[in-house]
């Protein structure tokens, strides 16, 4: 299983949620789909950890939530990036860039 669908690195879930929300407010399921979509179905977010992560991030003030109608007109909780969230995304993006470059370098060494 791990061969085809790599597990998410610890701490990257938050970053990807933030990224997924840059385009606009989404409900939880849509966040899931968007991450899947953006990663071309490579990354599979574990559904059980998505919601605790969303709620934790809201508590930290990175995202806000609001109840609203979904596409099929049902009540859903929509999450939206806050200004603090955007800043956080920038921080995480740049540190991710540094980290991934570093990891690639390590892995390319033979």
């Amino acid at each position, binding site marked *: 299983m791990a061969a085809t669908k790599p597990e998410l690195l610890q701490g990257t879930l938050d970053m990807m949620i933030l990224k997924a929300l840059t385009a606009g407010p989404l409900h939880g*399921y849509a966040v899931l789909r968007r991450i899947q979509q953006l990663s071309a179905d490579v990354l599979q977010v574990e559904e059980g950890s998505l*919601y*605790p992560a969303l709620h934790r991030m809201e508590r930290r003030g990175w995202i806000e939530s609001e109840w609203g109608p979904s596409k099929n007109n049902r009540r859903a909780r929509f999450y939206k990036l806050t200004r603090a969230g955007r800043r956080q995304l920038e921080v995480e993006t740049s540190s991710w860039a540094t980290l991934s470059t570093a990891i690639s370098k390590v892995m390319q060494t033979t």
Partner: protein
Amino acid sequence: MASLKALLNDFWALFHRDRIDQEVADELRFHIELRIQESIAAGMSPEEARRNAIERFGGFERVRETCREIRGAALLEAFAQDARYGSRMLLKGRVVTLAAVLTLGLGVGATTAIFSVVNTVLLRPLPYRDPDRLVWITQSLPRFKTRIVTGADFLEWAKHHEVFECAAAFSSRNFNLTGVDTPERLSAGLVSAEFFPMLGVQPLLGRAFFPEEDRPGRNNVVLLSYELWRRRFGGDKSAVGKAVTVDDERYTVIGVLPQGFHIFGEYDVWVPLALDPVTEFRRQRMSIVWAVARLKPGATMEQARAQVSTIAKRTEQQYPQGYQGVQVIMLPLHERLVGNLRLSLLALFGAGGFVLLIACANVANLLLGRGLARAKEIAIRAALGAGRLRLVRQFLTESILLGVLGGTTGLLLATWGMHSLAALIPSSLPGAQEVKIDHSVLVFALLLSLATGVFFGLAPALATTKVDLGSTLKDGGEPPVLRLGPFHFRKLLVIGELALTLVLLIGAGLMVRSFVRLREVNPGFRPQNVLSMAIELPHSRYPELARQAAFFREVLHRVQTLPGVQSAATTSQLPMAQGMGDQALFSIEGEPPWRPEEGAQRLVSQLVVSSDYFRTMGIPLVKGNCFTDRDMQENSGKVLINESVAQRFFPGKDPLGKRLKLGFPEGPEPWLRIVGVVGDVRLQTLEDEAGPAIYLSYPEVGDLGSARLVVRGAVDPRGLAIAVATEVRSVDKNQPVYDMKTMEERLEASVAPRRFKTLLLGIFATMALLLAGVGIYGVMSYSVAQRTREIGVRMALGANSSDVLRTVVGEAGVLVVLGIALGLAGAIGLTHLLAGLLYGLRATDPTTFIALSLLLSGVALLASYFPARKAAAVDPVVALRQN
């Protein structure tokens, strides 16, 4: 920001738990349903789609729980949970809870009540403008063993504007309000014009004094106290501008002071002091004043003291006889007004704190006992994954809950006791008459409750959560947690408690013994059945001595013939009454005059009394004769001395027939022949030794204007009061009689503050003793209950009941001995702080130390005797079968 938001969220969440729960569930359900729909759309059967969705989600309930925890009030939620659980536990152990709450209530109540007084007296600033800059200045004249500021001193100081913004002088005297239906005695504060502006006190009506009114001859203006204004003028605003007759002089009312304004005592009226700089500086007239000043911003008290000292040194050079060794004393006004109350208050506050500590120790003990009984519950919770921190938090929440309950009880008790505590505060302290619960008292009580909660809760929490899971959970196994840690801890608590109690007992014991000693003091007169009162003849109506003497002769004549009166007399100074009385230097014929080196040695109290004074007051005539009625009419040339004078100035000689005179041998006063020696009388208070005193039948200096009338009745003389006052009025209808009290009442009043402090300390000590008794009873009962089986074994092996009794009591005895040793050490270290409050014994009085150690041992051993007897009654068969 985010954390504040989180806390607010917590608060919101705390009260919307159901809604949060619902929302989380809705959100998660929405997710699952979307997934199902998608799967069905992709061709799965509804059944399959549902199963698949739930599987992929993985642990719906767990996720829901986690989310709820995050969304909910993470911190507050846990606290609320602990609190709910805690209250359940407290309700379950109702007896223990009640005992703990009451115990804490007593401790917190005692401490809070005293704190409210401390707050009023010591902490609250004086109700004046910028009170920190107000200072009290006086100077001590070692020659005369006294502190005196003369008008000239004050006027000199007041000039120094480089350190003082302004300075004001204060003095007091009494006036007769005349020209009204019932003449009345008024107490007056005499102040310089700067006084009210300096304090920042604005009259309620009218105005304060103008500077030009503070001059002799211009000073017939008066400010009324609020209370007098209400009483005599019915609170009528038109009183301002009216004329009143005081001592037969007309004064214009210029204003009314705010309600409750008093300083240095309570005064009915205020008039300008009107010092005359000319006569003061020539020292022809020496007014005695109190000096208060406001420091200039930026000037320190040290600078001001240096400045005033320089002036005093100059005066010393000018008048070496009087001012030799003069020392300037400068205190913050607040400190002067609080005076020696600080020591008693701090002692009482300390005592209250001790009671609280003892109460805490007892409650800690109770909780420890209960904690041990709950060991299994704790073990179960630990096994289910509660961390130690979580358990400690649970215990602490419980004890803080107890603390707050106890604190509330204490606050109620304090409110109840607070009014009687107002008696601690002297009237000289302004704005302090009402002791009330303001927010500082509330905050104090709250913090105290929380602190006690943590204090008595932490140790049991730590001790009882250290549970050995295995052995505790083993069904039917050993009684839980037999580890000795907590039990040793309980013993330590008891030892500490006994020690604190002993310190408190000894402190209270010293105070009680001081009080008893004081009451045993012979005042030098027989106070029973003597009524006393004051009469002050105004100079305007009684300008000469002859008229004053005639007035009193007539009054005495009339009063003596009243039924029920045995004798009556006048005196210029009454024992146990306020006022210093007259003191004078004197010379003995044929002996060298007073030399400066003698200082106050040759200063005697000088009293002018009528012939029956000694008989009326019950003062013994030791030798010679008393005055006769004839001696009062003219200058008889006779004098009586008291035993102190006889011993000090005529050691081994017969003073009768010797002659002395007031002042220096070459002075103008006539020589007086000593005709008798009378017993010493304590004049000021019971605590002050009687000093040398001489009695004259006729005033050599001054006059009879201010006299006290004493009447000895056959029975309780209070019934004579009205008759005596009527006789006085029938001699002069404008003459008020005031300050009417029996001599017994005066004696009582002079010891009343001490009695009250002693009583309070005694109450605290009794509370401590009871608590300590309960404490040791609790620990020994626990110990016995734990060891029933061991006791059973020992009895089965041949020990008899008295052996067991001895063992248990002996075990308690060890605690008692340790506690008492510690307590004695503490008492030796602490009681010297009380030295200033003691009378007639030292702070390390061995009798008190020994007696109270014995008392405490007795109570403690009695308290352990009951559990011991229970242990001795153990039936070995039953005990061994247990479990």
